């Protein structure tokens, strides 16, 4: 009987070989991050955003190299100077490579004022990868190599401020400060969000209730006025560096709520998921379940939330510094730079002091675009 009933051993051909080619196989076995990348690549705007962010990152890391001058170096002869124009042809129309003219002060007898005019007598070529003002990279590594430099004269791509400091160099250094505040702030909110959200979702019950009410409460206080109030009570005698850290911590401490909610929500919904149940029956320990199964399942969402919370940090710092409650000189950030263009008169007379604003908008835009692309990609199996 049994011989009749049991199905004869069917030779099963290697279907993998027959029907799947390499590409398809790699699709089916791709890790989650590979799938996310496949999906992310389709968002052209997000890719552009990614590219822009990479540029910002480079500016942040190699500010000393990219900026021709230090953030406090002065060109005393060129106060409130306009952005210099870059030339390629001399007055006779000959191609002379990239060069600038140096600027000299001239007393204008008609207006009785000092005018800054280009000295067309001598060409000042722009040298790339040239030695210039010495610096200490990140305060550690000595160097004097700059991306570009002009011998015996100054080059001010974005003009100068009231003290004759190069706006372009200061914007580059400001990038380092503003983005680093974003990074540190995001890390702080990441740790807080993960810990508090984790505790809330893991223990549930009363603790969860309390944490949830707390989060609702924090979210209902308007962020900026709260930041302003807290920033205002920082002691005036603190050093600018200390203020920098205080402001960073402040921004981080108030932005963990979104992440905490996400972590909690995911933990709670996942506790009931089949794959967690399966892992539990298979005898996995709690730690292994959380580490191997639950966290990878929502890591992508966490990364998305972190990316999305960046702009808020940058805007927060910029706004606080702009109104004079955040960072102070000699720390240079985008917000600090924008203090110089606080009123309409300043912008009317020296519109180039508004350059940092463009950087703020572009960086926030880039982060939002990347964040949106990642949000879509985070769910690689959805349509």
């Amino acid at each position: 009987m049994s011989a009749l009933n049991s199905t004869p051993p069917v030779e099963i051909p290697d279907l993998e070989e027959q029907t799947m080619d390499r590409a398809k196989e790699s699709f089916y076995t791709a890790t989650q991050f590979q799938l996310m990348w496949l999906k992310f690549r389709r968002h052209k705007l997000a890719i552009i955003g990614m590219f822009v962010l990479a540029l910002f990152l480079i500016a942040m890391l190699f500010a000393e190299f990219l900026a021709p001058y230090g953030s406090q170096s002065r060109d005393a002869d060129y106060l409130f100077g306009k952005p210099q124009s870059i030339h390629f042809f001399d007055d006779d129309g000959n191609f002379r490579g990239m060069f600038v003219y140096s600027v000299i002060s001239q007393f204008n007898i008609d207006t009785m004022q000092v005018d800054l005019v280009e000295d067309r007598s001598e060409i000042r070529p722009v040298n790339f990868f040239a030695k210039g003002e010495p610096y200490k990279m990140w305060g550690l590594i000595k160097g004097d190599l700059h991306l570009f430099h002009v011998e015996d004269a100054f080059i001010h791509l974005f003009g100068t401020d009231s003290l004759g400091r190069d706006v372009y160099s200061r914007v580059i250094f400001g990038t380092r400060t503003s983005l680093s505040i974003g990074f540190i702030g995001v890390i702080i909110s990441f740790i807080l969000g993960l810990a508090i959200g984790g505790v809330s979702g893991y223990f549930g019950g009363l603790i969860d209730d309390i944490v949830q009410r707390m989060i609702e409460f924090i979210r209902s206080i308007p962020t900026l006025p709260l930041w302003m109030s807290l920033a205002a009570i920082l002691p005036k005698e603190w050093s600018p560096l200390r203020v920098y850290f205080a402001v960073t911590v402040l921004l981080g401490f108030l932005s963990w709520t979104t992440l905490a909610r996400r972590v909690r929500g995911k933990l709670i919904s996942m506790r009931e998921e089949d794959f967690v149940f399966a892992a539990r029956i298979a005898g996995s320990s709690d730690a292994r379940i959380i580490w191997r199964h639950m966290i990878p399942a929502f890591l992508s969402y966490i990364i998305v939330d972190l990316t999305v919370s960046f702009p808020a940090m940058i805007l927060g710092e910029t706004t606080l510094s702009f109104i004079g409650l955040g960072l102070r000189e000699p720390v240079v950030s985008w917000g600090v730079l924008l203090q110089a263009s606080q009123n309409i008169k300043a912008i009317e007379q020296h519109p180039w002091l508004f350059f940092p604003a463009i950087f703020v908008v572009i960086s926030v835009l880039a982060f939002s675009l990347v964040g949106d692309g990642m949000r879509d990609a985070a769910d690689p199996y959805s349509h």
Partner: protein
Amino acid sequence: MAKYALRRFITMVVMLVALSLIVFVILELPPGDFAERYVHDLRQSGAQVTYGQVEYYRHMLGLDRPWPERYLNWATNIVTRFDFGWSLTYRLPVTKVIGDRIWFTIILSVVTIGASYLIAIPLGIYSAIKQYSTGDYLLTILGYLGMATPAFLFALLLLYVSTMYFGTSVGGLYSLEFQNAPWSWNKFIDLMRHIWPAVIVLGTSGAASTLRTMRATMLDEKNQLYVTVARAKGVPENKLIQKYPVRAALNPIVSTIGWELATIVSGSPITATVLSLPDIGPIFLKSLTNQDIYLSGTILLIYSCLTIVGTFVSDILLAMLDPRIRYGGIE
């Protein structure tokens, strides 16, 4: 429904109490107390003050008591006598300093939120229905820009453009003749005529995010099965969109009115300062830089109350919109 509203109301009251505690803590954080600062202030204006007087003031103001008692005192004064304390900068009671200005803040916030919804919701619907059209792309770009531009930058830009190209400044809220006039219908109309730059500045970022939320939820809902069912039933396309996905997409919008209001309120002190509006924004900034704690604390309290009340209103609205809450199905 009534039970739900009551529960939300109680939550709101609890939150207001918690909020007052936080504000109190912020008031107490800076070194030195109010008596010291007051005396310091008097000395600066040339008055002779002895150490005994400091102690006297401290005792008078109850500052030598433990902090729970001081908090209760402070809170009681607010509730029973509407006394929020004394402003050092203006040498007036806080309520006098704030006075009428609070109404501008409230009117500005309400008008802004109304305008931003009126504009953003239809545009969001359009964007979702005409997905990938030129209009959709344009709105998407505008939306991103709107969200990426901080309010103060926007305000500065608006000022710049208006002075450079139109020769008029958009700052201020009233024509000269109404500057100090008492409230009247004409003054209100005048206010509305001057309020739009502030509304644009304050409302753009919120409108941009509303537009994006509306578009995203519409796209989600548009492909839901119940919409297909309605289509299969022969409901005309226009009617169908209005009755089903729009209705569903309004929910997340309504439920975040509170946060929306928080965003607007959040931006208002800085916008108001840059545009020199006579609301509580500029005095908030001034009080912060001068460490005028009772004034700044009160304004922070006002800002937060606005958003907590906003959250309460949106919870109730949401309950009215969503049958699952209306009939006590889910929390």
